[in-house]
């Protein structure tokens, strides 16, 4: 049960990154530096689930999820506070009424609660080196690698080998 929920949580991270990718590639909304840092925090968070799936559950792996979620929540909160005042229209689009950084904070907090529930279900530290992987876990792992590698390429295209513009409108490496 805990293993299945770990795979679901892990796939959820890939889904979040894929939705962000959809808005970037299909709708042309380039991510700002703080947006990219929130994506990075999701990658760090996903590592905890990945290690649970790959090596068996461990308290250290859940710690990775929680620490990463707090860093992501801090980044989301910082961006929310930048657009907190009345009259500020915020940064980027707002699917379902909330901007992406606000959804980010919701998701990071949801992962904290989700991890708390998983820790209730876990029966103890059952770390096994090279735990046997099922097809679902293997598929989730490859999807995560693909999405993170995609973010690496798109961030290089957008920012080059340096910091990103505060409000990017073009891909730095694709400029004529």
């Amino acid at each position, binding site marked *: 049960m805990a293993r299945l929920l770990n795979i679901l949580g892990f796939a959820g991270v890939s889904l979040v990154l894929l939705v962000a990718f959809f808005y970037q590639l299909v709708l042309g909304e380039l991510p700002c530096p703080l947006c990219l840092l929130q*994506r990075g*925090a999701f990658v*760090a968070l996903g*590592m905890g689930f990945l290690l649970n799936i*790959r090596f068996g559950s461990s308290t250290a792996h859940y710690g990775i999820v929680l620490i990463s979620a707090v860093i992501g929540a801090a*980044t989301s909160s910082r961006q929310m*506070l930048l657009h907190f005042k009345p009259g500020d229209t915020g940064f980027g689009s707002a699917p379902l009424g909330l901007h992406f950084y606000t959804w980010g904070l919701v998701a990071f907090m949801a992962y904290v609660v989700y991890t708390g529930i998983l820790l209730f279900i876990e029966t103890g530290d059952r770390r096994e080196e090279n735990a046997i992987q099922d097809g679902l876990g293997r598929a989730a*792992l490859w999807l995560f690698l693909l999405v993170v590698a995609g973010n690496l390429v798109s961030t290089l295209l957008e920012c080059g080998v340096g910091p990103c513009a505060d409000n990017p409108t073009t891909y730095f490496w694709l400029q004529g």
Partner: protein
Amino acid sequence: MVMALPFLLGVIAIICAMVTQRRAAIGVWVLLVIVLLAWLRYHATDPLDLSF
């Protein structure tokens, strides 16, 4: 300051886990966390005109 570095570290950490290098994967994750915090400090420069 390389904005793509967190994702590069992410890819390395995933590959470490895939080739059963658990300790290396956790080590790279620690580096990733340090980079995320450093980059946040670098970018969170706009003063917040708010009082709590």
